[in-house]
């Protein structure tokens, strides 16, 4: 079959004859390998390959009656669907983020009461993990990664909002450039670029941000919840060497500055701001819940002190 669906600036959705529904976001590429369906027996076979972008999948009759016959592949994982919904995102490196979603009827109000959550399996060379809980997610970086899951603190609305994506910054800039002036390949002069120029030594790796360098206008309120959650799941091996804030992730929107002996951790949204100041020698675990987003940050080492900050509006 090998039908290829590629989106650029628009979203699309496919409803298969067995009522399987696949929503596809912008900048995505999907290959339909196999689709066979017997309408009388309500069985068949469905094979999909996700090459890039984000999809939201809702099971149809094949997955309900013969789940072994539904297979969704990404560059790094194979997803077995057992009569449920899920979202899948594949980035340019092939990294796959798969989130099990509850199947909710129209007009639902309470996930626990009104929705049904099935299960999906995620398989790599290193093994298979079964996702069974709503918003249970797995991030697979490579085919040789052992899949591990975590429960995301997200709502269905937030998952749906993830399906609204924008193209990468470079593409937007290029489109703006081409729109504002007639693009002329002769304008591109490769000789103007100094490929030998190296400015890595201009930066002092010992510099730490200080309070005076804080820019309150430099806040990104449109955070990518997937990046936040996956970065917290994965950590960053390089950040392990940052003794003061192990596994610190800028993607969470949590910022910090260090002045003399005081560590200031702060985070702001469009309507709220909190700031915590502690001694840099203190060891503690900080749990933050702000706008339904959960962030955990250790200072020095977990220690015996736990600080919890809850914000709501």
């Amino acid at each position: 079959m090998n039908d290829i669906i590629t989106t650029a600036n628009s979203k699309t959705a496919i409803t298969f004859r067995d009522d399987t529904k696949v929503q596809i976001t912008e900048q995505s590429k999907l290959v339909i390998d196999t689709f066979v369906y017997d309408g009388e027996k309500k069985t068949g076979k469905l094979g999909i390959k996700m090459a890039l972008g984000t999809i939201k999948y809702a099971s149809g009759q094949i997955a309900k009656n013969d789940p072994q016959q539904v297979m969704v592949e990404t560059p790094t994982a194979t997803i077995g669907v057992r009569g449920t919904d899920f979202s899948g995102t594949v980035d340019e490196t092939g990294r796959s983020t798969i989130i099990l979603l509850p199947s909710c009827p129209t007009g639902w109000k309470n996930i626990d009461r009104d929705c049904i959550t099935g299960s999906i399996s995620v398989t790599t060379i290193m093994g298979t993990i079964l996702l069974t809980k709503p918003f249970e997610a797995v991030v697979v970086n490579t085919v040789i990664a052992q899949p591990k899951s975590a429960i995301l603190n997200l709502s269905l609305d937030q998952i749906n909002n993830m399906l609204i994506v924008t193209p990468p910054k470079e593409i937007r800039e290029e489109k703006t450039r081409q729109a504002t002036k007639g693009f002329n390949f002769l304008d591109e002069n490769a000789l103007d670029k100094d490929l030998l120029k190296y400015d890595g030594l201009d930066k002092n790796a010992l510099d730490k941000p200080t309070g005076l360098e804080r820019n309150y206008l430099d806040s990104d309120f449109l955070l990518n919840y997937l990046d936040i959650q996956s970065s917290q799941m994965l950590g960053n091996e390089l950040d392990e060497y940052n003794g003061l804030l192990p596994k610190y992730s800028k993607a969470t929107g949590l910022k910090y500055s260090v002045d003399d002996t005081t560590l200031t951790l702060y985070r702001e949204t469009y309507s709220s701001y909190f700031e915590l100041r502690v001694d840099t020698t203190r060891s503690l675990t900080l749990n933050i819940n702000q706008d339904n987003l959960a962030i955990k940050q250790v200072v020095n080492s977990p220690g015996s002190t736990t600080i919890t900050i809850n914000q709501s509006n």
Partner: protein
Amino acid sequence: MKTLFALLLMTTSAFSQTVNNATVNLQGTNLNVSITQSGANHSAVVTITGVGASFMGSQYGTVAQSYSFSVYCGTNCPVNPYIINQY
């Protein structure tokens, strides 16, 4: 049995719809700070000297905000001083 210590309850405005309250309670092995803000553009700073921690919660615009800040301090919880500034 640990005593419950309520230190301060302040309201910054005489108008009932404008609220900027901050309280500190010592509850067992936890020190609990609660901040409630409505009206517009409030901030509250709570400094807990014994723990060496200072917390600020701010409200941007008119969306009401509430913060709860809890420090597990085991058997070394300070009774005071707590310093609260609101503006």
